[in-house]
């Protein structure tokens, strides 16, 4: 950013005087030529800087389109009556972590579940506030392998909204989900990981 402001100033300072090149000495002509090139190069710099910031939205678009990086759709899936595929088993494992700054214990009640694609299941996660203040947290899910991310459909999840816990309060939080029968044939195991972050308050 600092860099951007700086080069921008430079671009303005280096504005070449408009003079007719024929009247100039060799040195002045060279100066003029140099300044023109400098201005072009500074635009290149500005361009790369903008490119860096443009990568942020591009990255998100790419990730949510492809499910790359294990990003799941963080909204309730439509409960279309998916047909249960009894011929397949999928093993879904759960892991959890608590990020620094959040004084909670947080873990899944069961570490894995075996189910058929299409079959709706509920699993419970337990969170306990071990501080003596009210604490608000936000869970962020991630799925491995990334290509399967789009196939894990959540109907109801504690990660859809922020969770608030009173001092010492313990809460069982449900996750209702199914695995879409469109799950690629070579995937038999998936891991769903939740990281609980201190919620970022808007007022801050």
């Amino acid at each position: 950013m600092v860099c951007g402001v700086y080069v921008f100033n430079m671009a303005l300072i280096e504005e070449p005087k408009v003079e007719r090149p024929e009247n100039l000495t060799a040195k002045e002509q060279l100066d003029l030529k140099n300044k023109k090139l400098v201005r072009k190069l500074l635009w290149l710099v500005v361009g790369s800087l903008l490119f860096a910031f443009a990568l942020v939205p591009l990255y998100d678009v790419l990730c949510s389109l492809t499910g790359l990086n294990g990003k799941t759709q963080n909204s309730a899936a439509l409960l279309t009556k998916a047909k249960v595929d009894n011929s397949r088993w999928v093993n879904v494992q759960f892991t959890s972590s608590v990020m620094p700054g959040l004084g909670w214990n947080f873990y899944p009640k069961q570490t894995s579940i075996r189910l058929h694609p299409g079959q709706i299941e509920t699993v419970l996660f337990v969170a306990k506030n071990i501080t003596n203040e009210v604490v608000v947290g936000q869970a962020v899910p991630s799925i491995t392998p990334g290509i399967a991310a789009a196939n894990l459909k959540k109907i109801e999840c504690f990660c859809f909204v922020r969770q608030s816990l009173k001092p010492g309060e313990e809460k069982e939080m449900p996750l209702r989900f199914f695995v879409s029968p469109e799950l690629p044939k070579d995937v038999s195991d998936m891991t769903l990981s939740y990281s609980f972050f201190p919620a970022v308050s808007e007022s801050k």
Partner: protein
Amino acid sequence: MSTTTVAHHDDHAEHPTGIMRWLTTTNHKDIGTMYLTFSLIMFFVGGAMILGIRAELFKPGLQLMNPEFFNQLIGVHALIMIFAALMPAATGFANWMIPLQIGAPDMALPRLNNWGFWLLPPSAILLTLPFTLALFGIGDGALATGWTFYPPLSVQGGIGVDFAIFAVHLLGISSVLGSINVIVTVFNMRAPGMTLMKMPMFVWGWLITAFLLIATIPVLAGAVTMLLTDRHFGTHFFDAAGGGDPIMFQHLFWFFGHPEVYILLLPVWGFIPQILETFSRKPMYGYKAQVYSLWAIGALAVVVWAHHFFTAGMPVPALLYFMYSTMAISLPLAVLFFCWIKTMWRGSMSFETPMLFAVGWIILFGIGGLTGLVLADVAADAQYHNSYFVVAHFHYTLFAGGIMGIMAGTYYWLPKMTGHMYSEKLGKLHFWLTAISFNMTFIPQFFLGLAGMPRRIPDYALQFAEFNMISSIAAFTLGLSQLLFVYNIVSCARGGKKATDKVWDGAQGLEWTLPSPPPYHSFTEQPVIK
């Protein structure tokens, strides 16, 4: 190019003396000298830090420092070596040699040039200041994330991270200014008759480096700025809780980081062939092939970045793409190796110090490239990532390929720059000590990595003890040997056998047509190339 005579600078014989000469100078040789001196000093600062690390790793267990300080030393060592030692050294030579090699009186933008240099000392201070502040109880030391600034650690870290971010901004501006200067000089100031395809290889290497810098440094600047706003202004670019993504930082960082490794090496790939042709006494082989290969590497460099985090999780097609594109870089690189070797083939070679360094460089850099191919293999990298194997790989490319290459160039051009010959005997001793202790330091690290020792960890399991001990002893030898280098340079600058204009029997190129040392303003009448 178009101008045949270039007017004198106004400030001719009356430039200021003493400290003001250096503060205000716009002379390309003075600025070059400042860059090179700065680089040498920082080489020792960064070196001292890593000797602290090697001392801690001499034995298993924690002896000398706590893990936080260990991590700080590692990160600052790397940032200093890359941004304050290697890059300024290359820029120093660019300032000294590009005008001489293309027959120009000076760099195109002398005042910008002065700025470019004087941004460096403040950024070096910014990088190291947190260590001192911590002694006075302010903050908790320098950044402890390693040179790669990965979040979430860098978002949670102390003030050291902020200092490093500002340092990187200044260093970035400095490199961008330097690059603009190089490009403008090369495009507008060449002597009449020097077409692009007649330019010395060093100028080519630098031209491509300059474009890579302009394209990638702003991305780094953007990435660390996002870190800064994440840290202090409530944005969540890299914070998953706020909808951001820490992996995105890795993409942004390595979009800069991978081209950076070629930025460091392209200037070296420029002057090594010039040294080879000088001491083989025949023109370099495959000039055009080399130029095209440099461009090919420059272009490929910006599309392979994700090989630095194969293990962070990527779909298989992306893994395959980044693996194959990374491996593809070794094709133009192989062309270069072939040309370098063919340049020596059946030449009447002699082995003065620059040539010793150049030949040793080919072998050692070759090992660096080959081990890179191993790492580029996704399946192998799953084991080697974040191990000492990676550390050894990039020291073969950066210490051997970068620093030892710069040393070759230093011995090659020193007589031209100072007007005196350095001590050949000390130079050769310096080469052999460096080459042997370098290998003794890093070969064990390949084996440590294969055996599973992770990098950036202050303590290790007992089975790694012997190799670490060897590596540490050799590292201290390597560090101490560099004192010879300084001694040789300083005594050469102060006096010694007078150097001829041509210096080397087989030397080619415009810089050797000027007296040694060259006059304050290099070519007041531009030479004409036939």
